[in-house]
């Protein structure tokens, strides 16, 4: 009995000079929520494109529920629901007409189609607006419909590519809840995002992706362990950072300092113990501290630790 819903092996894709996906492999167990977390241009959408059969990989292979996407595309695609990153709807017809059409593309007809359209409308909270023309919908409503279409044929595997980009908190909540609802029904979900909070809230496992490569993969706690139990202090200063960096580096408990356009990130064992010394040392070299932000370890810190850059631009 097969227990992988998705298996990705040595996927590779280049666009001219850009190595968009660089030897990516992972497996997603049935019923798992798996997040691909990475900044813009990391290669998430390209990876998903190859998994959903939209793009042909330069190398590597993908299996969905045991069917090879390359050699048995129809069978593989029938198991899969895809929520594209860009809203892909017919905005000149109604929400209901969209659902009806897409349902048919997944082989639903007649009464089963009607039932599913009704259930999905309820799930995405658009029952009241089902007859409304999509172009008149808010961005959040369009996003919800964009998600709903992928759920119509009750696929066992759903891929969601940044389904919550640029929407209001209410619609975002609705989408995150529908993801949890799907998980409760045993659906396997591959979720991409560059919001670490979402990855943290939803995922069983997370892969962090950057420059086409998976640079870390594991459960949330496993990933946090990479940076150890370190706190992160983010500071903005006025004055030369080169004056203060050498002094801070020598302080007891400071593990790593990175600097990015006037913002300094310090990874420290215990921020409460380190902070007084940080202020003192700054005053000693005439550097003024404008803001201080303390964070317990999180995925952002992991990304920073691994790449030296912040996750969000």
């Amino acid at each position, binding site marked *: 009995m097969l227990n992988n819903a998705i298996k990705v092996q040595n996927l590779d894709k280049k666009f001219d000079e850009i190595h968009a996906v660089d030897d990516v492999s992972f497996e997603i167990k049935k019923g798992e929520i798996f997040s691909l977390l990475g900044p813009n241009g990391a290669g998430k959408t390209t990876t998903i494109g190859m998994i*959903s*059969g*939209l793009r042909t990989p330069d190398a590597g292979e993908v299996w969905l529920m045991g069917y090879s996407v390359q050699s048995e*595309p*129809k*069978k593989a*695609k*029938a198991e*899969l629901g*895809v929520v*594209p990153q*860009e*809203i*892909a*709807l*017919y*905005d*000149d*017809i109604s929400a209901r*007409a969209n659902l009806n*059409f*897409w349902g*048919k*593309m*997944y*082989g639903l007809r007649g009464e089963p189609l009607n039932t599913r359209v009704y259930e999905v409308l309820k799930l995405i909270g658009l029952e009241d607006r089902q007859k409304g023309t999509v172009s008149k919908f808010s961005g959040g409503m369009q996003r919800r419909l964009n998600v709903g*279409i992928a759920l119509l044929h009750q696929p066992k595997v759903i891929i969601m590519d940044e389904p919550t980009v640029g929407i209001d908190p209410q619609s975002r909540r609705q989408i995150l809840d529908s993801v949890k609802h799907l998980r409760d029904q045993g659906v396997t979900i591959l979720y991409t995002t560059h919001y670490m909070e979402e990855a943290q809230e939803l995922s069983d496992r997370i892969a962090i992706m950057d420059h086409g490569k998976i640079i870390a993969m594991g459960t949330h706690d496993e990933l946090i362990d990479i940076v150890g139990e370190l706190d992160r202090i983010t500071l903005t200063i006025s004055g030369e950072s080169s004056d203060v960096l050498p002094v801070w580096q020598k302080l007891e408990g400071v593990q790593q300092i990175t600097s990015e356009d006037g913002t300094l990130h310090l990874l420290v064992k215990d921020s409460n113990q380190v902070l007084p010394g940080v202020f003192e040392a700054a005053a000693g070299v005439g550097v003024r501290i404008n803001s201080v932000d303390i964070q317990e370890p999180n995925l952002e810190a992991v990304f920073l630790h691994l790449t030296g850059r912040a996750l969000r631009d």
Partner: protein
Amino acid sequence: MKMLSIALKDIWRSFRSFFALAFMFGVPILMTLIFSFLFGGIGSEDGFEIPTTDVVIVNLDEGSPYVSNFDHEGGVVNSMGEMLINTLEEDTFKDLMKISTGTESEARLAVDEQDAGLAMIIPANFTNALIGQSSSDAEIEFYKDPALTLGPDIVKSLVMGIVDGFSSTTLSIDTVLSVLSDQGISLTQQEQMALVDSLTSESENQMQDRGVGLEVIPPSTTESSGDDPIKAILRSIMGGMMIFYAFYTGTATAQTILQEEENGTLARLFTSPTDMVTILNGKFLAGFLLIIVQVVVLLAFANLAFGVSWGPVLPLGLFSIALVILANSFGIFIMSLVKSTKQAGIMYGAVLTFTGMLGISSVFVMGSPIEKAFNFIPLLVPQGWAMEALEASWQGNLGRTLLMSAGMVGWAVVFFFIGNLRFRKRFG
């Protein structure tokens, strides 16, 4: 089954789009009306009739010793005023105005009581002023029913035109007389009269030429005689417009492939368990069905609303099927040549409009001397073959309809072959 769903979805979208509907039905019908009007709709019975205006003319013209008793159209008139009335009473203008004469007070009363649309009062010194023998200007007074505009205004401008003709004549009389007197020659009253007579009748001839310009010139179409010329014009124009805009519909429908590519729905379709070939065929089928609807509606509308007769059913059916196939594959072909909907815009302007106008140009040159010389040019473009086939079909010429329709299908096969191949390669 999925193919049909895709096609029906596209058709549904078109029917919900104001622009799609306008270009399928509204614009061709509107263009037909406009062109028919420009080509000679005046006086037709088919909707763009200019109303006949009741005109009461009051002739106060006392004439002039110079123009007493000269011949005009076989009759004898005593004044320019009378000549003007005679001119207006000619057959040429009978659809435009109904003329009666009366006294000034009768005329004004008739207009006030809306028995007449226009009263026209020719002043006493009209003749003398025209031949330069009056100290003051002569002005024709128009008194019109304020509720009416079109009819009386047309009559008014017509009269002004005629009077212009008269006065250019009198200007030349003046010139001749002054040149002669400069050279020491003076004419007797008799001689002056003869001069005026010959010059005014010359002007009268020019008038005749002008009058012809206002006549409805029936186009020399090749169909059997006895047909209403206006309906024949309508048929030609409607036929041309139908062909032009069938190609438009084919192109616009094929363009939705590019649109769907750009807004991500095509990619989404490709992630569903639906073959690329099925998706493309569904899009092609949409164009096919839409053009069928368009052609049937336009043919029926022209028949019911304008009374256009399209000739025998068999050749018409043949032509229609060929048109649907051709217009659709043309659209697929030219859309397969462009990368984006932006470039598609250029295709509309450059290719679709240009070939379309060329193809149906026979409609616009019909009856003119260049028609013959122009004969072969439309056949350089597919729309021209369609126009020829349509003309053959309404003439009931089954053989020629078959020939031209076969030609159309030939174009279509080439278009579809290339277009389909390019799209498959693009998405394969």
